[in-house]
């Protein structure tokens, strides 16, 4: 599994990879919001937690179809499936690599972008914590979606459609955590919920994903 994670990170750093790109996409998305809704600072600060979370989620979404599809297209997935590593391991490695190359940088970038939107200072810690935990669950769910759609050429849009509904609880809990922190409510409960959700996802999704991969390789 380690060589796989290492290779995926290398590929993400190479040309056409997704490392800096997800970040840049996040940046542009956040910049788009003032263009769309207008530059009112109070308004922007109010919607900042939600927008940051949605932005991170969409940036994450956009790199999902790379997870398995590239490997499927050049025959690597067949070769990996017949190599002596279990499919659940493969699935976990893929999701982990995705999180390292996407979720982690997004989390780090969220703080300065939050400042651009005028996020109140009480929110930053909770924003970073919720994103760090939440994007892990997003990566695993996204990996599941990628496993389901791996047989479909350029299935990016279908993948999004399948994955986005699964993202709803994570989004709600994540954005709520930050909103509550800003409003002076106690955000620990929602963050704990979020952590539980992530744990559940990380524990169970690899099995579902390996079933989907198995079916798709047939």
């Amino acid at each position, binding site marked *: 599994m*380690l*060589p*796989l994670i*290492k*290779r995926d990170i*290398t*590929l993400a750093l*190479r*040309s*056409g*990879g997704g490392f800096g790109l997800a970040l840049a996409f996040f940046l542009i998305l956040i910049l788009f919001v003032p263009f769309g809704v207008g530059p009112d600072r109070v308004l922007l600060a109010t919607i900042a937690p939600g927008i940051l979370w949605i932005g991170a989620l969409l940036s994450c979404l956009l790199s999902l179809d790379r997870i398995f599809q590239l490997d499927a*297209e*050049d*025959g*690597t997935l*067949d*070769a*990996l*499936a*017949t*190599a*002596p*590593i279990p499919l659940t391991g493969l699935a976990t490695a893929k999701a982990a690599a995705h999180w390292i190359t996407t979720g982690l940088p997004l989390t780090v970038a969220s703080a300065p972008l939050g400042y651009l939107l005028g996020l109140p200072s009480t929110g930053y810690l909770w924003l970073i914590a919720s994103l760090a935990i939440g994007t892990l669950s997003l990566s695993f769910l996204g990996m599941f979606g990628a496993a389901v759609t791996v047989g479909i050429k350029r299935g990016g849009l279908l993948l999004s459609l399948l994955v986005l509904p699964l993202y709803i609880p994570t989004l709600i809990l994540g954005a709520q955590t930050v909103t509550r922190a800003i409003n002076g409510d106690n955000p620990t409960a929602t963050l704990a919920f979020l952590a539980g959700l992530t744990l559940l996802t990380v524990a169970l999704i690899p099995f579902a994903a390996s079933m989907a991969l198995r079916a798709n*390789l*047939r």
Partner: protein
Amino acid sequence: MFTVKNITAQRGPRAILQNVSFSLAAGDCLILRGPNGSGKTTLLRTLAGLSPPSAGEINVNPEDIVYTAHLDAVKPQLTVAENIVFWHGIYQTAQSDTLKRFNLTDLAQRDAATLSAGQKRRLGLARLHISGCKIWLLDEPTTALDADHVAEFAQILTDHCASGGIAVVSTHLELPLPNAQTLDITQFAPTETHADPFLEGSF
């Protein structure tokens, strides 16, 4: 060591081959013959464990098997050497003279994306050597190779079998493999028994 008993190989809803049986011992090389669309790829995928047979049984340790398909499993963004290192990592084998054996030494630092069709195929075949597996399943391995490299690959294959390995090869070309058995797979074309439950009865 590698026995197949009465398996039915399926593709989508269709049974493509039925009652395929053979048994290979260490050192055996089996060549699959049949025209286009007769089911060579289907059979190899079934043997590799990618699509389970819908009937019959395959006795083999899946860890012993390495399979090369029509596609090369080469990452275009990595260099030739990096591709090789990656597969060594996956199969957890030590690095050896792979580059030389597959005539890739000069290309080692090139991005795999810039290889010609034949060069890429050689890199794909190198995985056989890297894996250290005993059983090689090869789907038209010599596609895109020039005459010299076909001969060289046949030598690699012969060496592998001579040292106790097993190979199942589908090919349309004549490969110079002195000790190979040939299996004409057209004999396994399914008879009128239906594998598909939707073809039974009438409604």
